[in-house]
């Protein structure tokens, strides 16, 4: 008979295994089973995973939940087994993934009518991959789960196989991500050669005594490349817009909401546990901050330059992961806390916006801003949901996005980067402004009638996901959108959210305690966090400022022909943007060339200061 604690320590393994088993069951019965049964099994499984991970997260607050799979417990601090570790951040990210999968499945319930059980099966495998990736304490398993979620994601991206853009996007996504993973595996192999072990706690103990030699720097760069590809950092980001623009809407929710942030999670999981004691913090911090800022700026500019709404949201995700990298890249507790809050808030808002893009696609048969000018004026609720989503993305308090942004800005300032608040406000305002611009055009018919332009991918060829265009929004589509927006709101309103994030961040960066707890099984009590409130005055003001600037950006773009200053200012900018657009060529060879260039640059950034 299992004791209660034993049962809890099984949860990390169960949360990975249950969706895989359910996916196999669905594959077996999917042909004959009626669609409601398939939907029911898939939704019930993901709801079960949500419940398991919620219990795990509650326990992780009192100490990490350790599971040496198959009871290969360490003897004298050594084990060849593999370990799953549920700490607050790992369990929290996994819980976020499970919640989003559940909502995406509910959204697909009556919406994605043509699909068979493959779709549900792939969604559950994707969930298993993400949960495993978040909970594993083993570097090689990170590679395996990276590829498991990758393979499910490639298949889901190309799910609309009749759609010419979908298959191209899926192939680009697959090649770039897999190549990134293999480069990461080279780094993992090199680390194994040095240390003879690949569990994160043992790597931590073994490397803490090493000087930083060329092999360790090279393996850091290789492993980092893999996770930065997943995290869509410039110049590894090209696959993201192609994949997001073409994947079915409920799948985009998972990509933007959690899969891409998981890349950032892995960067810092591995940095803190394996490399933090070997490599000097200053060189690594500079690398992260420069890379994050570059990503945020390029993402924001490309976001504003899109007319395909899903592609626009995809570039906005690139801009926001850049901000997460800047916040967590400060390598402080409060920076990590800011990134955690921002990831959670962003997941709610961005997922809601993607689901709204699905509503747009399946009512009007297009997601193109220019084609749909004024088409949505007769809607009542949808247009206001778009407005709320746009403002929340821009960081309007009290949404969780604004809280994460405020904490991240503070962290940047206290690490000595005075320009960080400017970057955060500008990027939030531009991305939020782009969403508001589309909303204004499509749902309010505002602004001058747009001129057609063929400089960027148009959104009118997107294949719809329902057999006939919907006359009105279905309740199963509306509920997930409302839940996501309310969740993002709750994150900022609930007292203690910031404090909980600080505590989780403190445990996340305390790698010595992680290693000790995993190897000896003895809980290590961390120092208590002083109580902090959610909001500061400057945070609220900067949030209001970026929301206001977003409205101005949208208005400027909508009425550009009437505002002479705006038109002159943007004309010069347009030429630069066209150059940037030309780089996003949709050519997989170009993307690989950028990937290799980025890796070399990364090596130079980390390696040269060490000489």
């Amino acid at each position, binding site marked *: 008979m299992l004791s209660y604690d034993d049962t809890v320590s099984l949860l990390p393994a169960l949360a990975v295994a249950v969706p895989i088993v359910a996916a196999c069951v669905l594959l077996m019965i999917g042909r004959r089973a009626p669609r409601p049964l398939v939907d029911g099994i898939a939704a019930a499984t993901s709801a079960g995973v949500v419940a398991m991970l919620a219990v795990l997260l509650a326990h992780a607050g009192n100490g990490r939940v350790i599971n040496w799979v198959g009871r290969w417990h360490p003897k004298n601090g050594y084990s060849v087994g593999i370990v799953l570790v549920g700490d607050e951040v790992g369990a929290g990210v996994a819980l976020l993934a499970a919640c989003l999968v559940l909502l995406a499945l509910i959204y697909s319930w009556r919406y994605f009518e043509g699909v068979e059980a493959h779709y549900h099966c792939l969604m559950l495998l994707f969930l298993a991959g993400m949960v495993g990736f978040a909970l594993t304490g083993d570097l090689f398993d990170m590679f395996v789960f990276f*590829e498991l979620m990758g393979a499910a994601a490639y298949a889901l991206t190309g799910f609309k196989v009749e759609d*010419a853009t979908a298959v191209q996007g899926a192939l*680009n996504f697959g090649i770039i991500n897999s*190549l990134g993973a*293999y480069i990461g*595996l*080279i780094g993992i192999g090199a680390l*194994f050669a040095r240390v003879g072990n690949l569990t994160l706690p043992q790597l931590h103990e073994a490397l803490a005594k090493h000087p930083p030699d060329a092999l360790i720097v090279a393996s850091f760069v290789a492993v980092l490349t893999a996770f930065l590809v997943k995290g869509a950092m410039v110049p590894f980001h090209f696959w993201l817009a192609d994949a997001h*623009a073409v994947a079915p809407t409920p799948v985009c929710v998972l990509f933007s909401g959690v899969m891409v942030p998981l890349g950032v999670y892995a960067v810092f999981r591995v940095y803190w546990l394996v490399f933090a004691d070997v490599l000097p913090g200053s060189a690594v911090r500079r690398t992260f901050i420069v890379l994050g800022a570059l990503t945020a700026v390029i993402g924001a500019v490309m976001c504003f330059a899109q007319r395909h709404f899903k592609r626009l949201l995809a570039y906005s995700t690139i801009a926001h992961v850049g901000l997460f990298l800047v916040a967590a890249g400060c390598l402080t507790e409060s920076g990590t806390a800011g990134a955690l809050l921002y990831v959670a808030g962003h997941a709610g808002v961005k997922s809601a916006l993607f689901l709204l893009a699905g509503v747009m696609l399946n009512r009007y048969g297009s997601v193109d801003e220019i084609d749909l000018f004024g088409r949505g004026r007769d809607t009542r609720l949808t247009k206001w949901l778009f407005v709320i989503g746009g403002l929340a993305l821009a960081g309007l308090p009290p949404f969780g996005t604004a809280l994460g942004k405020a904490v991240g800005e503070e962290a940047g300032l206290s690490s000595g980067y005075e320009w960080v608040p400017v970057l955060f406000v500008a990027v939030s305002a531009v991305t939020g402004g782009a969403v508001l611009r589309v909303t204004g055009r499509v749902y309010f018919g505002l602004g001058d009638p747009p001129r057609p332009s063929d400089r960027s*991918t148009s959104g009118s060829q997107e294949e719809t996901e329902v057999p006939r265009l919907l006359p009105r929004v279905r309740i199963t589509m509306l509920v997930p959108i409302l839940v996501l927006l309310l969740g993002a709101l709750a994150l900022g309103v609930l007292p203690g959210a910031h404090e909980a994030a600080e505590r989780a961040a403190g445990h996340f960066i305390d790698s010595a305690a992680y290693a000790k707890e995993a190897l000896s099984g003895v809980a290590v009590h961390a120092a208590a966090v002083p109580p902090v409130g959610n909001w500061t005055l400057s945070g609220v003001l900067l949030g209001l400022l970026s929301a206001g600037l977003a409205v101005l950006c949208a208005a400027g773009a909508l009425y550009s022909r009437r505002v002479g200053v705006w038109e002159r200012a943007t004309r010069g900018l347009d030429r630069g943007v066209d150059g940037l657009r030309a780089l996003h060529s949709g050519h997989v060879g170009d993307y690989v060339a950028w990937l290799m260039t980025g890796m070399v640059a990364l090596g130079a950034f980390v390696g040269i200061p060490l000489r």
Partner: protein
Amino acid sequence: MSVYAYLVAVFVLLVGAFGIVRSRNLVHAVVCLSIAQSGTYILLLAVGYQSKATPPVFGSPATKPTKAVAEPLVQAMALTDIVVSATVTALLLAIAVQIHKRHNTVDPNELAALRG
């Protein structure tokens, strides 16, 4: 183990990546991807290799080996890696077939659906 095996591993990975950059055919690009992955098999096996070591097979009940044995962990990893490769290659080739159906070409230079 001599350093050459490691150099070969990295070389094979880079050749594969270069092949994708220069590719004029998506099937060729997918095969180049699996060539790049072969670099990782070489690396993993090189890490576990010892000259004059026996395979890591023990009797039952396990007796303590008298001679050096090759590292079994990396061999297990290489096997997992091969399974991953088979999945990804099959999936990507299927997508390449579908691209041919939709675009009537498998030359990445002629695919122009996604730009900017």
